[in-house]
């Protein structure tokens, strides 16, 4: 079946613009995660969704970052007034259940470059 998909695959934007990144999880997966990987660094947790609720937003770096999930499916990560330090690969993952031992299935990522 189809895996996790993300769009766009690449995004170049100017500093100060808003961007929206989309994630389509595997159908039926209740948990959804966003991570970020800046150049030369490991992946950082951003936010976790269980259904359409986000019980853990602790990784969002600033109030310029927000995310939502609708229909227990698609999720959108929005970055307002982008800054150059927002340049990174943004990864989405989903898992069937919410447990700590669940396998997470990753999308291909969106590579964001802020000029």
């Amino acid at each position, binding site marked *: 079946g189809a*895996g*996790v998909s993300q769009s766009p695959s690449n995004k170049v934007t100017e500093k100060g613009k808003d961007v929206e990144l989309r994630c389509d999880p595997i159908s039926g997966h209740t*948990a959804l*995660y966003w*991570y970020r990987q800046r150049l*030369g*660094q*490991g*992946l*950082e*947790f951003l936010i*976790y969704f*269980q259904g359409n609720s986000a*019980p*853990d937003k602790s990784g969002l770096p600033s109030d310029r970052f927000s995310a939502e999930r609708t229909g227990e499916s698609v999720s959108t990560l929005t970055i307002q007034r982008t800054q150059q330090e927002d340049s990174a690969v943004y*990864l989405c*993952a989903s*898992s069937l259940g*919410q*447990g*700590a*031992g*669940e*396998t*997470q*299935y*990753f*999308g*291909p*990522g969106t590579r964001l470059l802020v000029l």
Partner: protein
Amino acid sequence: AQRVTQPEKLLSVFKGAPVELKCNYSYSGSPELFWYVQYSRQRLQLLLRHISRESIKGFTADLNKGETSFHLKKPFAQEEDSAMYYCAPNAGGTSYGKLTFGQGTILTVHP
């Protein structure tokens, strides 16, 4: 603070040689432990997880609670094992999959 360390950024071995990728973690509670792998031009995927006590593609990982380590090992490396490997403990104390990734180790297996 919760932290995971992969001390080797790059690791090179020859085909057939043993390989060990190190991972040390510092966490409160008892985290679930995973190794994820990213092969060239592929997406990040699960290699193995401690809870399953499994061996995948010849790799095993032993949890040493005393040393807080979860090193990944394979007795005879193959060229197709060349990839980026991430140790990823689930944040201890959470009931969901909040993974914290190490910086990764790039493994290159030479013919």
